[in-house]
Every structure is written in structure tokens, then in C-alpha cells.
């Protein structure tokens, strides 16, 4: 192999601290992804950037670690009978269209209002979507918990399933039959959100549950198929532009492949509403985190004034609360796994 120097403007020097940080975030992100179908990406990208990795390399490397993690998680959960491959593939195709539209919207926002405007748009989308969807999922999770953990198909999903609009598609795994025209928008919205805030699953999983009527356990596992297809396509694209730092990818994968399998196993220990509970908790904390980042962008755009010290504090608190979101999710997962295991030992 001929000697080729690593471009220092794109690739950071790795030290023990950064390796340990990436491995741990990879593990926790993997644990959450294996359990709720997505997550981790929203901490990994800013986390890598805080280590000095340029934004595009961080996004590319994150995506390149995401699809193999999703693949391993999907295979594991498929073995538990939780994956609706047909639903996942249909969702993935429409999500790819959503991603393309999302990228175009981003480009328009960037051209009109610059980087600060683009950041503001991303953060506003984060806050609005996560507060609205996360709040709804939390309300439903609490309702499920109070009614003994039983999941109910929403009235909207039941109504949509009765509308005979060609072509009707049967999803035997999920136990439903619905028109393609109601499936496509959910996938499209997943892709649109993935291109905007990098975590399409925050719309994809609730969309499958509440709009299409897919059971929560099945929706969270099927999202891994969507993440795999979208992530593979995106990674090939980024890799062809030479933006993937394979060293970072392998370190993160080292942790996340351990985590994603543990998260997948965890889904068999808990009642299905726990998946909604974890997802909603993470979404609402991330919404607060992004809400704290809003003033920084408003200052950059000249809409308000704040001292530099306050902006710096808000930035740090915002990043810390994002890490807190991931950690809280991990603690709930491990805690409920522990409780599930204890109950199982007591029963046997």
C-alpha cells in the first residue's frame, strides 16, 4: 500500500479520551436504537463535532455506523418475530423520496438565511415535532401503563384501514391491511425528518403506530429496516465524496453493536408500552435541549442580543441535556430489563 497522508483538516488525531467517549456513546446509542428503533445519532454528531471533527465528516461517519447497527438490530429482532420486512421496505422507499425533498428544503433555507438560519430551522423543527409527537406518545404510554399495558389501535388507524383505496396492501406480520396511499406519507415524513434532524424514527415509529396501526413492538423493530436502507444509501453517497472517517466508524461500531443487541434483547423483557415510554422521554428531553439552543441562532440572525457568556452556557447546557436524554433512556431500559428479569426468575 503506498503511503497516503491523512488530511488534517478533515480527520482528527485520535486519543484515549476520544476513543472512550465514542465507544461509550456508541454503546448507549446502540442500546436505545435496539430498543426503540432509533436514537443515538442526535448525540453522536454533535459529540464528534465537539472532538473537532468537521460537521460533514461527523454526519457521514455517523450515518456509516448507523446502517450496520440497524442491520444487526433488525436481524436480532427479526428472530424474535418483531420485524415487518414488507412494511419496512415500503416505508424505506418513500423515506428516500422524503430525504431528497428534505435536502432540497435545507438547501433553500441555507441559501435564503445562511448557516444560522439553517440551524434555527433545524432546531425549530426539532422542538415542534418532538414536543407535539413526543407529548402524544407520552400521553399514550401513560394511558397504556394505567390500563395494564394493553395497546389499542387508534381510531385514526382503524378508520384508515377500512378505506378501500387501490392498491390495498396486506401486512400479515403487523396484522393489518391498508392502502399504499396511507403508508407512503408516513415513510415520506420519516425521510423528511431524517434529512432535517437526522432522527427520522421519531416520526417513523409513532407514524406506524398511530396512523397505520402497527403494534408498538413491531413498529420500533421495523424502523430498523428503514434506518438500514436509508443509512446504506446515504453512506454510499458520503463515502463516494470521501467524507467517511472509517476509524471513527469502527470505534463507534465497537460499542453500538454490543448495545443494539442488548437493547433488542431488552424488548423481550418488558411490556410493549415501555418502548413508547422510553421514546417519549427521550423526545421530550431532546426538545428541551434544542429549545435551549434557539436563542444562540436568534442572536446570530440579529433578532435578539445576549452576552457571549450566556450563549456559551446555553450551548453547554443544551449538549449536556442531549446526553442526559440518551442516558435517561438507557437507565429506563436497563432498569426495566432488570425488573423483567427479576420477575422472570421469581416466576420460574
Amino acid at each position, binding site marked *: 500500500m503506498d503511503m497516503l497522508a491523512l488530511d488534517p483538516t478533515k480527520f482528527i488525531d485520535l486519543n484515549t479520551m476520544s476513543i472512550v467517549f465514542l465507544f461509550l456513546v456508541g454503546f448507549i446509542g446502540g442500546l436505545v436504537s435496539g430498543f426503540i428503533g432509533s436514537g443515538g445519532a442526535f448525540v453522536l454528531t454533535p459529540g464528534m463535532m465537539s472532538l473537532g471533527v468537521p460537521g460533514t465528516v461527523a454526519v457521514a461517519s455517523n450515518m*456509516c455506523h448507523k446502517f*450496520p447497527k440497524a442491520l444487526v438490530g433488525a*436481524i436480532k429482532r427479526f428472530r*424474535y418475530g418483531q420485524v415487518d420486512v414488507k412494511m419496512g421496505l415500503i416505508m424505506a422507499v418513500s423515506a428516500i423520496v422524503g430525504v431528497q425533498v428534505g435536502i432540497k428544503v435545507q438547501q433553500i433555507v441555507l441559501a435564503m438565511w445562511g448557516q444560522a438560519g439553517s440551524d434555527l430551522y433545524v432546531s425549530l423543527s426539532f422542538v415542534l415535532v418532538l414536543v407535539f409527537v413526543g407529548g402524544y406518545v407520552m400521553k399514550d404510554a401513560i394511558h397504556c401503563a394505567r390500563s395494564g399495558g394493553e395497546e389499542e389501535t387508534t381510531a385514526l388507524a382503524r378508520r384508515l384501514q377500512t378505506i378501500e383505496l387501490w392498491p390495498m396492501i396486506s401486512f400479515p406480520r403487523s396484522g393489518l391491511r391498508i392502502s399504499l396511499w396511507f403508508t407512503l406519507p408516513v415513510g415520506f415524513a420519516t425521510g423528511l425528518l431524517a434529512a432535517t434532524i437526522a432522527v427520522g424514527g421519531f416520526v417513523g415509529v409513532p407514524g406506524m403506530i398511530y396512523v397505520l396501526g402497527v403494534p408498538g413492538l413491531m413498529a420500533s423493530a421495523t424502523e430498523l429496516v428503514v434506518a438500514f436502507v436509508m443509512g446504506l444509501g446515504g453512506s454510499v453517497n458520503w463515502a463516494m465524496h*470521501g467524507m467517511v472517517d472509517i476509524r471513527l466508524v*469502527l470505534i463507534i461500531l465497537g460499542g453500538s453493536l454490543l448495545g443494539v443487541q442488548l437493547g433488542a434483547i431488552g424488548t423481550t423483557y418488558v411490556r410493549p408500552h415501555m418502548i413508547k415510554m422510553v421514546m417519549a422521554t427521550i423526545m421530550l428531553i431532546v426538545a428541551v435541549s434544542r429549545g435551549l439552543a434557539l436563542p444562540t441562532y436568534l442572536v446570530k440572525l440579529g433578532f435578539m442580543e445576549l452576552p457571549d457568556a450566556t450563549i456559551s452556557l446555553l450551548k453547554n447546557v443544551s449538549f449536556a441535556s442531549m446526553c442526559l436524554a440518551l442516558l435517561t433512556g438507557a437507565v429506563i431500559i436497563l432498569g426495566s430489563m432488570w425488573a423483567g428479569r427479576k420477575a422472570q426468575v421469581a416466576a420460574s
Partner: protein
Amino acid sequence: MTHSTKPVGRTLVFGALTAAFYTGFFAYGDTIAAHFAQGSLWAAGPIATVFAVSYLHGEFASNLWATLGISAVRKHERTTVTATKRPAQRPTLHA
């Protein structure tokens, strides 16, 4: 929880293979990363690498959790809503 024997052998084999892969890679980490960052057809490099790691490390991780006694519980069967039946044949005209 299954009562089958723990896959210690498979854990060790895939653990050793994963460790060898990571050691070999990081011995030339910067050079390999620089080659893969040339873009175009070099894109096959990172994609093939992560697929290889998915298999080796994925198998290791799976067997490791099983060896540690953490396996899936099949305590409840999947509960799904019943699919709406396809409507009966379209009405035909028997003239």
C-alpha cells in the same frame, strides 16, 4: 430463557476474530482511512469494512450476551390486531 448450553466457544472464536480485525485495522488506521477518503470507487472500502465488522463483531456481541446469561425471553406471544378481511369477490352480473 432458554436452558441450552452457553456458546462460550463461539464467543471466544468471534471475539478473537474481531480483536484480530481491529488490531490489524488500527495498525494501519491512518493510512487505510486516508485511502478510503479518496472517494469515488474507494467508497467500497468503508462499506465493505462495516459489513465485515457487522458480521464478526455482531456475532461476538450476540454470543457474549448469551454467554453472560442475557437472552431473549419469550414470555408473551406477539399480540397484533387482526387484519381486516379482504372483501368478498366483487359482485358480478349474472345476466
